[in-house]
């Protein structure tokens, strides 16, 4: 380990972010390069901790912070935190490198880089935090940065709205998390993970309390990781720059929820009821998001839905109360980070070239963008768990473990997971067919831009990583000191998965690649038409929230404002009424 790496790994990007406004005054070139260099250095520090983790080193370094609340400020070095920090800093560095090309012509770059660096720094800080309050602080900072970055193009009203929506929806979950943290503190008197773990192992907390606490913490994760019913912010968040989407989806923000859950499972000895809730939410989310991806024409929205769906898989795995399930979720997290970053960066190249996100306006791009096409294929196959790409190994691990679950719920979760795998392959093929194959795009004539090499290089790195990382199971398991060495192939579950791929892939192939069935034919069928409408409207979650929360509070606000008449007579009447009411309470209560 390099000296002070647990601190420097997040302090460098975190404090470095404050240099962005100054660098912006000096020169654009320096401003473009510095963030990448900072995060690259930070990733060197995080990676330098990996060998120590291999050798079973773990430590908790802290300094006093608020003695009144028995709170210290510290970093926790263990397998989970270092693993997450490595993923974040690696992906973050690649995305910042890509930004040099992607954001080359943008204005207010210092704002962009300030928040990007703060985002990455806060995320690494979040995973390195050794106590819950510190985690919560970074948790909110991550939310703040995503808000600012999604709304980066403030001249588009939708972008600003999407940013606000993301912040509001996730903050709802955050307050659940806060309540959970405070309730935990009330019962244990500590925020520190290790002390908490000791207390739980000693049996100082009763099981029903643990279930309540874990569910409150889960509320926070639902918001951040965009699970049902709080997933609505993530598809809209696509209004931000593509690099931001890549960062949110692959490294920061949504992974924070998964990290929190993994940490919860590690610290609290969770109960079966809680596990079942998590797995159910995960399975429902995985399925619903995948179906929505089928009906969307915005390439980034499809990718967003696929993220929600893949996060659902991670939650299924986290809801399986064994060490295997936990490990599978983390393995899928790593693989997902790689292929999702790859897919988003590929989409970024296309958007950079054509200036549109609508897949109907794309088409036939395979010839013009060979490398991107190839990279997108690798990413897409990883996403839809085609062997031997990395997504296959981790998703198969999750499905194989959920196959072994008992009971009807276990079976339902497994079936939903397998169906989702089929749908995933279907929408991936649809995406590839619409974007890269078929007739050539009509937009290209008006607008073609060179794609700089700095944008291609990260694609190659990530594509190679997608191919390799699936085979690193032994090393991965060793990092977490697990006895297991990797995926145990279960022939039944494997054949179901392969069958699902064929069942999902074949119709999509016929419609979008071979184009022997026109897609209009499907939407003409009355039943399918209704389903299609439901899917394009995102199961009406948005309309529902809009009606209840936006319209409802606005109505309440209007009604409440009527009370403030500003007429002195009425005001005095209220004053007297209040006084009389209070006196009445006293007299009625007698000798209070």
């Amino acid at each position, binding site marked *: 380990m390099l000296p002070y790496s647990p601190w420097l790994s997040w302090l460098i990007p975190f404090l470095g972010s404050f240099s962005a406004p100054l660098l912006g005054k000096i020169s654009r070139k320096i401003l473009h390069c510095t963030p990448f260099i900072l995060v690259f250095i930070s990733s060197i520090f995080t990676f330098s901790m990996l060998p120590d983790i291999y050798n079973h080193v773990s430590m908790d370094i802290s300094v006093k912070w608020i003695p009144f609340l028995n709170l210290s400020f510290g970093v926790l070095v263990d397998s989970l935190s270092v693993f997450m920090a490595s993923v974040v800093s690696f992906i973050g560095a690649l995305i910042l490198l890509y930004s040099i090309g992607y954001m080359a012509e943008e204005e207010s770059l210092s704002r962009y880089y300030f928040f990007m660096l703060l985002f990455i720094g806060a995320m690494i800080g979040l995973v390195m935090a050794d106590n819950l309050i510190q985690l919560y602080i970074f948790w909110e900072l991550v939310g703040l940065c995503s808000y600012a970055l999604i709304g980066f193009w*403030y001249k588009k009203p939708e972008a600003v709205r999407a940013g606000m929506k993301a912040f509001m929806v996730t903050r709802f979950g955050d*307050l659940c998390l*806060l309540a959970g943290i405070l309730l935990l503190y009330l019962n244990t008197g500590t925020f520190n993970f290790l002390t908490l773990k000791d207390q739980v192992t000693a049996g100082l907390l009763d099981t029903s309390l643990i279930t309540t606490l874990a569910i409150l913490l889960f509320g926070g994760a639902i918001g951040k990781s965009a699970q049902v019913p709080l997933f609505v912010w993530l598809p809209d968040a696509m209004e931000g720059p593509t690099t931001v989407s890549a960062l949110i989806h692959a490294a920061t923000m949504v992974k924070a929820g998964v990290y929190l859950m993994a940490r919860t499972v590690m610290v609290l000895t969770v109960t079966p009821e809680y596990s079942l809730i998590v797995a159910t939410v995960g399975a429902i989310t995985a399925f619903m998001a995948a179906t929505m991806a089928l009906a969307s024409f915005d390439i980034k929205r499809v990718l967003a839905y696929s993220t929600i769906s893949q996060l659902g898989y991670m939650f299924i795995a986290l809801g399986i109360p064994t060490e295997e399930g936990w490990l599978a979720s983390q393995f899928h997290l790593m693989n997902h980070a790689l292929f999702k970053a790859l897919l988003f960066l590929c989409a970024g190249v296309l958007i950079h070239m054509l200036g549109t996100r609508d897949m109907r306006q794309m088409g036939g791009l395979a010839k013009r963008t060979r490398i991107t096409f190839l990279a997108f294929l690798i990413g897409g196959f990883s996403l839809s768990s085609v062997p031997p790409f990395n997504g296959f190994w981790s998703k198969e691990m999750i499905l194989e473990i959920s196959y072994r679950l008992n009971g009807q719920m276990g079976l339902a979760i497994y079936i939903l997971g397998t169906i989702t795998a089929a749908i995933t392959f279907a929408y991936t093929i649809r995406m590839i067919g619409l974007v890269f194959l078929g007739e050539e795009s009509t937009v290209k004539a008006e607008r073609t831009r060179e794609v700089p090499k700095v944008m291609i290089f990260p694609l190659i790195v990530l594509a190679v990583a997608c191919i390799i990382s699936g085979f690193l199971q032994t090393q991965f398991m060793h990092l977490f000191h697990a006895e297991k060495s990797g995926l145990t192939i279960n022939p039944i579950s494997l054949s179901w998965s392969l069958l699902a791929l064929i069942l999902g892939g074949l119709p999509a192939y016929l419609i979008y690649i071979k184009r022997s069935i026109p897609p209009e034919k499907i939407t003409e069928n009355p039943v399918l038409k209704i389903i299609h409408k439901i899917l394009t409207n995102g199961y009406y979650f948005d309309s529902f929230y809009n009606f209840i929360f936006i319209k409802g*509070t606005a109505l309440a606000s209007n009604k409440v404002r009527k009370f403030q008449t500003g007429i002195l007579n009425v005001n005095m009447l209220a004053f007297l009424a209040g006084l009389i009411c209070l006196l009445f309470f006293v007299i009625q209560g007698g*000798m209070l």
Partner: protein
Amino acid sequence: MFGPPLDVLLMFALTTPLIGWVSTKIRFKSLCGVYAVIGLSASGYEIYRLGNVFTETEMIVLNSEPFYSCLRIDYLSFFMALIFILLGFIAALYSIKYMEKDSGVALYYTLLLIMIFGLLGVVFSGDFFTLYIFWELMCIASYALVAFRKQHWEPIEAGLKYLIMSSAGSGTMLLGLSTLYGLAGTLNFAELAVIVPQTSNIWSSISLILLVVGFSVKAAIFPFHTWLPDAHPAAPTPISALLSGIVIKAGVYAILRSLFTFFPSTILHWQTIMVAISILTMSFGNLAALLQDDIKRLLAYSSIAQIGYISFAISMATVPQALTIGLTAALLHILNHALMKALLFLCAGAFIYRAETRSLKELAGIGHKMPVTAIAFTIGALAISGIPPLNGFVSEVMIAYAGIKAGMLAYTAVFLINILIGFAYYLRLIKVIVWSTPNEKLDKVKDTPYLMLIPILVLTALCIIIGVYSAPFIEMAGKAAEALT
């Protein structure tokens, strides 16, 4: 006469008109403002010096003739006085530039100094009679300050409304005081604390109700808040900052003092009423602010909501196991809210100073023309919505913890939902100010003048410092809470 901090302030207040006359002679208009700032810093220094005494003793009695033992200072008084003098200083500094175009500034600064003098007197008082006198002094100064720009109709109307409502409150308070005096034969705090718990009959409860209602008018607790949404926006902006930042806190201080010093046994039965009132206060404030178009009015409604948070913490402190944490949270939030709200008002004032409108529709996008002020404003808005690592987060988390510790989980959930609603309109405010495209009317707008920017930046820095390193501030609030119990 009243002890060094008050004497200095009174002396400066009484000589300000003279300085005003001198300033017209030498044609240096800002002289009064500078003089007031000097006065406030001198008084602040005297208060700061008191701080050293508290390492040895719990209470300082200012036993100089002729007001023997009427004034005494414990750590709570000291804590409140520090907030008052700091905000007074900031507002006076800001006024130098902001009030430049107004006539009669000498009067303005005299009133401002008298208001701070009254506020300090309220927290230094050792008996209710003295407290009442200082209270009225502070009130009268604040009526005049609200109606200071008398050439417009709005301040006059708001000032009159404020005067009538507040007088009704003072009357109720006086009735409560006379009942208390008839009951106990004294108004001295220390003596009351001994006598009142022994004479627990219905009249002691009634006198307490009358007192609390009287203070509640000033503290803007529902349903006695109705003057606030009119008075705070109508006043000149530095005065709005003071009204929302500290004047309403004087009401909270008086409630705290009377509840926890004399009636500790009574209040236990009042939990439900107190919680209900605080929930109503915060919900009303937040909901009313949600769709508000006038930036200052929005901030005024938000002040009501924040008073709701503070009184929520106070009502949690009525549960024995949450006593310390509840009071500490309430006092810390008093400090934090004073800073955050003053920051927001001063930034809003800067926008108004440049754009000459209070309507959010017309202010849209002004942040691009005034970047530094806009950043400060954003930090203030995030702080008040409880985003870490800013100061509002610390006290709001402590309030939530007090609620959980008191075992009132459902009410705490309502409190958290209220934070979310508050967050919604502050996000909207940030959207309007920062994330919008400015219209042509704002083309010529420049950033805030330096003299107004300094107070804003000082407050911003304090918001960040208290958020990042809150330990000493929590300790201070904790010590102040200890003085009450």
